[in-house]
C-alpha cells in the first residue's frame, strides 16, 4: 500500500507558486515551464495556485520583513506531505538584496534574506532566473523527496 502511495505521490505533484518579493523574473520563467516546449503536465505537475491542493510550493524572490508572515502562513496552510522549492538566487539566499559576503548573509533594513529564513526549504534552484530545465530538475529532486514520504 505504501508503495502505491509513494508511486502516486511521485507521479502527481501539484505545484503552487509563491512570489515573495523581488523582480518577478522567476515568475515568468515558471510560466515558461508550462509552455508546450517544456510541458510539465507530462510529469503529472498541475498548476494549482492554492496551497491546500499543492504538494510542492515553489517560492521565488527574497523575503522581506513584511512578507515573512505571509509566506509562513501559506506554508502552514499546505497539507502534509509537502516540499518547498526555493527558486532563483533571491529565494535561495537573498541575492543582491542582502549584505554580507558569500555565505554570510546579513539582513538589510527591509530584506531578511532567503526563503529558508521563513520556512524550511527542501530544494534550492540557483539562477537569475533559472533556466526552465533547471526548474524541472529542482522539481524532480523535490519529487524524489516526496516519494520518500514525510
Amino acid at each position, binding site marked *: 500500500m505504501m508503495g502505491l502511495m509513494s508511486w502516486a505521490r511521485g507521479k502527481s505533484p501539484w505545484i503552487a507558486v509563491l512570489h515573495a518579493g523581488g523582480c518577478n523574473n522567476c515568475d515568468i520563467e515558471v510560466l515558461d515551464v508550462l509552455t508546450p516546449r517544456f510541458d510539465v503536465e507530462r510529469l503529472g505537475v498541475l498548476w494549482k495556485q492554492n496551497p*491546500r491542493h499543492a504538494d510542492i510550493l515553489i517560492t521565488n524572490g527574497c523575503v522581506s520583513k513584511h512578507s515573512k508572515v*505571509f509566506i509562513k*502562513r*501559506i506554508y502552514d*496552510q499546505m497539507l502534509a*506531505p509537502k516540499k518547498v522549492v526555493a527558486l532563483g538566487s533571491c529565494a535561495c539566499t537573498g541575492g543582491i538584496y542582502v549584505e554580507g559576503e558569500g555565505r554570510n548573509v546579513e539582513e538589510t533594513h527591509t530584506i531578511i534574506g532567503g526563503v529558508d529564513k521563513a520556512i524550511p526549504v527542501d530544494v534550492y534552484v540557483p539562477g537569475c532566473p533559472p533556466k526552465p530545465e533547471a526548474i524541472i530538475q529542482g522539481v524532480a529532486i523535490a519529487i524524489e523527496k516526496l516519494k520518500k*514520504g*514525510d
Partner: protein
Amino acid sequence: MIDPAIVIIVLYIAAAFCLLGKKIRKGNDVVALLAIGFALLAVVLNYFYLPLWISVPGVFGFAFTINGYTNLIALIATFIGFLVVVYSVKYIEHRGSSYSLFVLLTIGSLIGMAYSWNLFWVFLFAEVATITSTFLIAHHLKSPSFEGGLKYLSIQIFASLFVVVGLGFIYQEALASGYSGIGAFSIDFLLSSGLLTGFIGKFSLFLIFLGFLVKVPSFPIHTWLPDASTVAPASISTLLHAMMIKVAGMPAFLILLLFHSLFVSINFWLVICSLGILTMLICVIIAFAQNDLKRLLAFDSVSQMGYVILGMGIGGLAISFYDITTDPVWLVVAAGGITAGLFHLLNHSLFKSVLFFSAGAIEHETGTRDINQLGGLLQAMPKTGYVMLIGSLAIAGVPLLNGFISKWMVYNACISAGQPVFALIAIFTSALTLAVFLRILCSVFLGNSPGTFEGVHAAPRSMFTPSLLLAIGCILFGVFPQIAILFLILPATTVLLPVAITPPANPLFWVSLDLFLLGTLLIIGLIIGYLLYRIKWGATPSEAEDKTMPFTGGTLKDPYLKVEEARPASTVFSYPFRSLLNGVRRSHTGLVNMYILWFVLFAVLMLSLLIVGWI
C-alpha cells in the same frame, strides 16, 4: 367518533376562559394546551373512525361531515395548531390575555371550517377566522402591525363580498325552487338536488371560487400574505401559512371539483393551471429580491401554493376530459393531479412550519430578520440550523425529502394530462426555489458570523421540538411517501373524484419509483465515500499554528479585498430577472387600494371571460 361541534365548543370555551387570564397567566397556557390537545385527540380519533361516539346532534344547526377530505384538512389544521400553541409558550413572552384567546378562536374556527360541508358554515367560520387572525397579526400593537393587519382585513373582507354575492345567488335559486334555510347551502343537497344548473349556478359558484382564491392566495391577489406575515409574530405566520391559507383556501377547489359538471370547459381548467403557473413563477422571482427572512418565506409560500393550484387544475382538467370522453384513463390522471396537489398541500404545511418556526427562533435569539445582517448561525444555533437545512432542502425538492415526491407527482400529472409546458415551468420554478433557499441557508447559517451575535444561544426546547417533529415528518414522507398517500391523501382524493376508483397497487401509481431502493443506493454511495475518507493512508498531520485558517492569499487581518465578508448578494441571483423584477417592484406599491384594484380587474377579466363563454 367525537362530533366536531364538541371540539369547536371546547376550543371556544377555553378561549373564553382565557379572558380571565389577566390574573392567572400561567393558566392560559395550560388551558390552551389542554384544549388544543383535546382537539388533536378528537381529530385523530375521528380520523380512524374509532367507535367512541360523543355527539350533540343538531346544536346550532352545524352541518359537519366526516369524510376523507375533511379529515385531512382538519388534521393539518389541528396538528399545526397544536404545534403553534406549544411554540407560543416560550415565543410570545409579553402576551396579554388576548393572544391565547384569539389563537384558540382561530384554530377552532378553522377546524369548524375544515369539517363543514355546508357553504354557509364554511363562509361563516372563514369570517370568524379572518377577524380573529387580524388581531393576531396586529399582536405587536405597533404601527406596521396595525398596517399589516388592516391590509389583511380589508382585502379579506373585500374577497368575502364575492362569496356573499355568490351565496346570495344560490339562495335566490333555492328560494325559486321552494327551498329555504341554511340547509339549502349544504353541499350534499346542492349536489343531489340539481339546484345549480345553467349559467346562474356556474356564475355564483365562480364568484365563491374567486372569493376563496384570495385566501389561497393566487397570483394577482397574493399581496396580503407577505404583508401580513411579515409583521405578525412567527407563530402567527406559521398559523397563516401552514393552516390558514390551506383550510380557508381549499373550499375554492372543493366546489370546483365537486361541481365539475358545471365546469366542463377545457379552457377553464387551463386558465386555473395558468394561474398556478403564474403564481409559482412570479412569486418565486419576487422572493429572490427579498432581504427580510419572513417576507422571503411568505413569497415562497405563495409560490408553493402555485403547485397546489396546478395540481388541482390538472385534476379538474382530467375530470373534464373524463366528462367529455368517459375514458377511465382520465380518472387515473385526475386522481394523480388531485393527489399531487393535496400531498403538496400537506408537505407544504410541514416544511413551511419548520421554516417559520426556525425563522421565529432566529428572530427571537438575534433580534433581526435581515438576511444580509445574519450569518454564521450554525455555530450558535446548530439544532435550528440543521432543522432549517432539512426544511429548505425539502421545499427545494431535493430527492428523498417529501417536497421532491409531491413536486414529482405534479410534474407527472401535468405530463400525463398532456400539458408538459406546465411541468417544465414547474421544474424551473423548483430550481429557482432551490436558489432562494440556498441563499437563506448560506447567508444565515453558513459563512462567518458578523460578530454582533456573540451571546446568541440555541432556542428554547419548546420552540425547537415542534420544528424537529415536522422535520422528521419531512424525511419520513420523503422516503416512505406511501404512508402519507395511502392513509392521508387517497381518502381525500376519492371524495373529490366524480367516480370512486380503486386505489392502485402502488400508491405513487405512475412509473414505480422505489424510494427505498433509491435511499439504499444513496446510502451505499455515502458509505463508499466514507470508507475512502477513513482509510488510513494519510500522512502524519503537521502541527502548524495557522494550518486551519482560511486561505486568503496569506493576509488575514486586513485583507485587501474584504472578500471574507462575501455573501450571496441578491443581485447575483436575480441577475437574469432584473427587468422583470423592476416591473414587479414598481407594481407592488403597498397601497391596499391598488391591490384591491388588481383584484377587481382580475375578477372582471375572469367574469367577463365566463360571461362571454370562453371559459
